[in-house]
């Protein structure tokens, strides 16, 4: 039953990623064609553009949601592949704990970076 819960969330986060990463990818890689969210023109990764984007609170929030969803989706997917190699019960437990710790650490770090940069962008 636990697997049903985890898998349902895997699918749900997949849909969230589809929308948010879709926006992210369009911004970053179809910038030459569409040029969304790039007020300064040129490359999407130019400093002026990322500061301009970071001033929008919605971007910071979407980044954090995307971060959480993508970490869950990716780590669950990786766990699925590892579990299908047929590891022993003890190793399965170890993988579960390790992935939770890894996921939470990366989430905390990424959230801190996103919020911090939001403040920096507003400070000037």
């Amino acid at each position: 039953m636990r697997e049903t819960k985890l898998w349902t969330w895997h699918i749900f986060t997949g849909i969230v990623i589809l929308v948010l990463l879709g926006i992210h990818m369009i911004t970053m890689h179809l910038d030459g064609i569409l040029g969304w969210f790039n007020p300064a023109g040129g490359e999407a990764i130019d400093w002026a553009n990322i500061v301009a984007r970071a001033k929008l609170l919605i971007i910071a929030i979407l980044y954090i949601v995307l971060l959480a969803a993508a970490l869950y989706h990716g780590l669950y997917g990786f766990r699925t592949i590892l579990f299908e190699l047929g590891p022993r019960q003890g190793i399965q437990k170890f993988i579960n704990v390790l992935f939770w710790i890894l996921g939470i650490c990366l989430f905390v770090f990424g959230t801190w970076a996103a919020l911090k940069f939001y403040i920096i962008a507003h400070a000037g």
Partner: protein
Amino acid sequence: MLQDKRCPNSIGVWGWLGGGRWGLERYLYTLHRLTGLGILLYFILHILVTSSRVFSEKAWETWMGVFSSPVFKIGEFLVYVAFAYHAINGIRLILIELGFSVGKAEEPIYPYKSSLNVQRPLMIVSIIVAAVLIAAGGYDFFALAH
């Protein structure tokens, strides 16, 4: 007797790669796995690298300078290809695995048609959409001079 010696005969990881006269869906499954792993690896590095912007504009510019070399450009494009495939095939898998595009149970009449035949149009459409996305991305990556 049943307690006799047995010879283990599992295919092992080689079985994931197919390696024979299997249907296209089997290779899409393998590709979904490989692209997923690739994206996860990139994603974790991506979190760490893009966070450099917090420290200074210089740190950001340094990192972006490193990644603007042709090798990384191609690597980045491969990640984009993986994303486009994983996303579009992912939509197909969600529709299938939640039972929307596998059809209803029916009386099997020879030659048998299975749920694979039901989802095949969806599969073809998703491959075409993924190909279009990859082509558009490739145009942006390489043709539009940055």
